[in-house]
């Protein structure tokens, strides 16, 4: 069969274990003549050798492991075609332990087929999978009621399941068609059944062909998470190229873009492409690359937005729906990494609002942890503000995953941005960045000239730990090595820039404002390319976040001197100054590793 077009669609197959997904797919492949000759013979030969009756499901169970266990263990990809288009079937297994494979399959699919056993009826995973499909963004669904041959092709059996499952689908805002089939006998898979004349609807194949290929979201505001900024100077290429995949909308040369959450602004100078003429625009779903008129600092993790469009949400706190697939429960006690687009931030579950049990979706419990395979409503708080959209506005930018111990173990969608304490500060900095007048020398050129990256070296620790002594020693050592370095005592700021709010004695009420101003002063010095050393007593993570608002956060290194650090995240912990020379070498190594000091 040769499709009329080159159109391709990804389909996921889901359903409870043993409800017959593999048989449905195997039959679909065989009946559409989509099997390579070698494959069919190979399986038939294997069945002959092992004295097993040939089953269509074996076609998919290509791995020895699976054949031994009798269940599909991973989301396999199967290619086939109809007269309408090409299909890639992502076979999602139904065993309860293998939900992560279903998620993998479903998130790459444009439509889903959910298989329910006519004899067994709606089971736990029929519901769980339906709910996950909805959260993962599937909007087109057909439900195959399989093994109709085992219930004598009975219409009442079919009708009962249809009634029960449609009620469930409407609760989770999904809808779909229902088809009575038998994978084993081939009824209503690719060929209309003659054993169920009471059914007048489409076959599974016709239902697949009836799914609509959704166009890329061009009508939404432009969003592009920045994947990277390229400068291949050594290969003689002077372009500074910003690269990423466009999620929604489009851009053209001359468009003004803002990068969130920093608020830095630039105008697109050129679209870039290798081997052919650059296109006139880059739009949703395309891997884009462009240069800017201005030499502003852009980094991976920021979201490019058209200045004329409504911007994304920016916050550290968000209300989310999530699913968890880790063996260890998800708890508010632990720190995780949260990834949205290309941004990655450490954070925590601030509060678990409710946990839904997939077996009984209407039961909602207040719990203090989220177990394996559960779905929950939570509040997340990340270390730094992240840029995102809510699920009802731009779904792609509302999606996040949770990384625990190097693995993605959960994911979800952001429903709502919640206020966080630093919002006013952030807005101030965004306004500053929008108004920022760029110096005539780019950051990279300045850094190249100085053989150093600008850096804020925060030396913190408890009172009398020797912070100033250390700061001065670092300053002397780096200066002797030819670096542009400056130690700025905190008093210099307190009694100068802060003179209007400085009150005598240990008054903490102005602390956030002091830190904000310190951050602004540091930002100016860093823009001038300086390695700036600042000492401060007992900084906490919250304090650091205030400073980070004002300074590009990848330019800050934190040293803790002495015992008992606060909750602040430290780049280097120095126990004491007993061996100052060794400590200074340690600091130098850190600066070299981070690429702050280097020689050309």
């Amino acid at each position, binding site marked *: 069969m040769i499709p009329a077009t080159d159109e391709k669609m990804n389909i996921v197959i889901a359903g409870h274990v043993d409800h017959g997904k593999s048989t449905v797919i195997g039959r679909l492949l065989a009946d559409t003549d989509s099997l390579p000759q*070698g494959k069919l013979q190979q399986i038939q030969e294997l069945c002959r050798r092992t004295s097993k009756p040939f089953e269509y499901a074996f076609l998919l169970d290509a791995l020895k492991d699976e054949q031994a266990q009798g269940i599909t263990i991973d989301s396999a990809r199967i290619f086939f075609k109809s007269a309408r288009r090409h299909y890639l079937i992502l076979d999602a297994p139904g065993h309860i332990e293998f939900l992560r494979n279903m998620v993998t399959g479903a998130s790459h699919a444009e439509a889903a087929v959910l298989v329910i056993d006519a004899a067994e009826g709606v089971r736990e995973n029929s519901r769980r999978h339906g709910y996950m499909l909805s959260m*993962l963004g599937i909007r087109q669904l057909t439900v195959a009621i399989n093994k109709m041959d085992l219930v004598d092709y009975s219409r009442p059996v079919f009708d009962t399941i249809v009634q029960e499952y449609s009620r469930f689908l409407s609760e989770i805002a999904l809808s779909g068609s229902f088809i009575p089939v038998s994978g084993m006998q081939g009824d209503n898979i690719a060929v209309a059944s003659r054993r169920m004349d009471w059914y007048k609807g489409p076959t599974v194949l016709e239902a697949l062909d009836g799914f609509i290929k959704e166009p890329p979201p061009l009508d939404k505001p432009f969003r592009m998470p920045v*994947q990277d900024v390229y400068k291949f100077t050594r290969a003689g290429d002077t372009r500074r190229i910003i690269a990423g995949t466009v999620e929604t909308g489009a851009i053209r040369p001359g468009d003004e873009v803002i990068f969130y959450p920093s608020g830095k602004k630039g105008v697109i100078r050129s679209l870039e492409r290798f081997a052919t003429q650059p296109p006139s625009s880059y739009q949703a779903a395309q891997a884009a690359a462009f240069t800017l008129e201005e030499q502003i600092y852009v980094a991976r993790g920021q979201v490019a937005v058209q200045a004329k469009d409504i911007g994304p949400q920016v916050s550290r706190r968000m209300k989310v729906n999530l699913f968890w697939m880790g063996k260890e429960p998800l708890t508010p006690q632990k720190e995780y990494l949260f990834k949205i687009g290309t941004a990655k931030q450490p954070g925590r579950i601030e509060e678990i609002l409710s946990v839904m049990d997939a077996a009984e979706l209407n039961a909602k419990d207040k719990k203090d942890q989220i177990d394996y395979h559960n779905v929950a409503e939570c509040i997340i708080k990340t270390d730094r503000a992240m840029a995102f959209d809510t699920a009802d506005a731009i779904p792609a930018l509302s999606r996040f995953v949770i990384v625990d111990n190097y693995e993605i173990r959960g994911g979800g969608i952001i429903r709502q941005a919640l206020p966080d304490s630093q919002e006013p500060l952030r807005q101030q900095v965004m306004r500053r960045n929008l108004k920022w007048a760029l110096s005539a020398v780019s950051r990279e050129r300045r850094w190249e000239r100085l053989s150093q990256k600008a850096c804020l070296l925060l030396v913190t620790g408890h009172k009398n730990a020797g912070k100033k002594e250390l700061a001065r020693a670092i300053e002397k050592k780096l200066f002797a090595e030819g670096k542009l370095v400056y130690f700025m005592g905190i008093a210099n700021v307190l009694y100068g820039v802060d003179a209007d709010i400085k009150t005598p004695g240990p008054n903490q009420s102005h602390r956030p404002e002091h830190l904000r101003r310190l951050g602004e002063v540091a930002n100016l010095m860093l823009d001038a390319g300086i390695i700036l050393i600042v000492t401060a007593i007992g900084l906490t993570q919250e304090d650091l976040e205030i400073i980070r608002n004002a300074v590009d956060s990848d330019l800050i290194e934190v040293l803790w001197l002495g015992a008992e650090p606060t909750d602040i995240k430290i780049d280097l912990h120095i126990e004491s100054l007993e061996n100052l020379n060794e400590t200074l070498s340690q600091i130098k190594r850190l600066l070299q590793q981070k690429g702050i000091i280097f020689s050309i």
Partner: protein
Amino acid sequence: MSDHLEQLENLSIHILREAYANFKSLCMLWSIGKDSTVLLWLSRKAFLGHVPFPLIHIDTRYKIPEMIEYRDQLTRQWQLDMIYGMNTEALDRKETYPDGNADRLRCCKLLKTEALKNTLSGQWPRYRFNHAANRYETDPNHDPFTGVIVGLRADEEGSRSKERYFSRRDRASEWDIADQPPEFWNQYKTDFAPGTHVRIHPLLDWTELNVWEYIEREKIPTVSLYYDQGAGKRYRSLGCWPCTFPIDSTARNPQEIIEELRSGQLKNIAERSGRAQDAEDGGGLETLRREGYM
């Protein structure tokens, strides 16, 4: 531009850029075959004309000679950072299938899997092309590669259809198929424990036909072995000459191969049917692949 090829190209570029942004010690395996050559072309697209990581080729000394010529010619022409590795010990011991001292699977394991594992980890010598001197030299760098880009496709054979785009390998390069983390939306496994590495598969969703359509559309230079030179034979899949056999075909260029694949004689013949080691592994590559084979 054809829509389905553009979709495939966009996702592959996205994956290559994710790999480059997240793995400091990154390399790409280049087998000289059509798939990894398409991958090389896609890298130049992703990085706007550059290939900003080394290419690794595992030489078995039994590769069809045209493959090595083509490799070095493209290395010079595109200024590629080219590294090859090989199992010199096994070759010196003559523990190979052509020498009659190993069966096909053992030979593959020694000359390819072992050579690959030890070249990636840096335990065996690497030979890097010095463009100024126009020759291969022993590479002083022994750092292990933590990200390895591979041009395999899901439709090639059973076990490859179970791969992720970003697939973790443990310390011994082994692959635990039953315990793979989920991979969803545009989020991949870019965090990894010390000592482990990640295999990256930007071509996972491509079919053999897509690869040829793309070669034709982009005019990508490919090795002449894929085309009939007048004898009515051509290679469909490339490997070592003792275990790789040409098929009967008169296709002389990508366009004719596409026609052959779409409607002609190859429609129902498995792509790797000319590769003898697959047949010895119970009809698949699973045993080899669990141990680290591509």
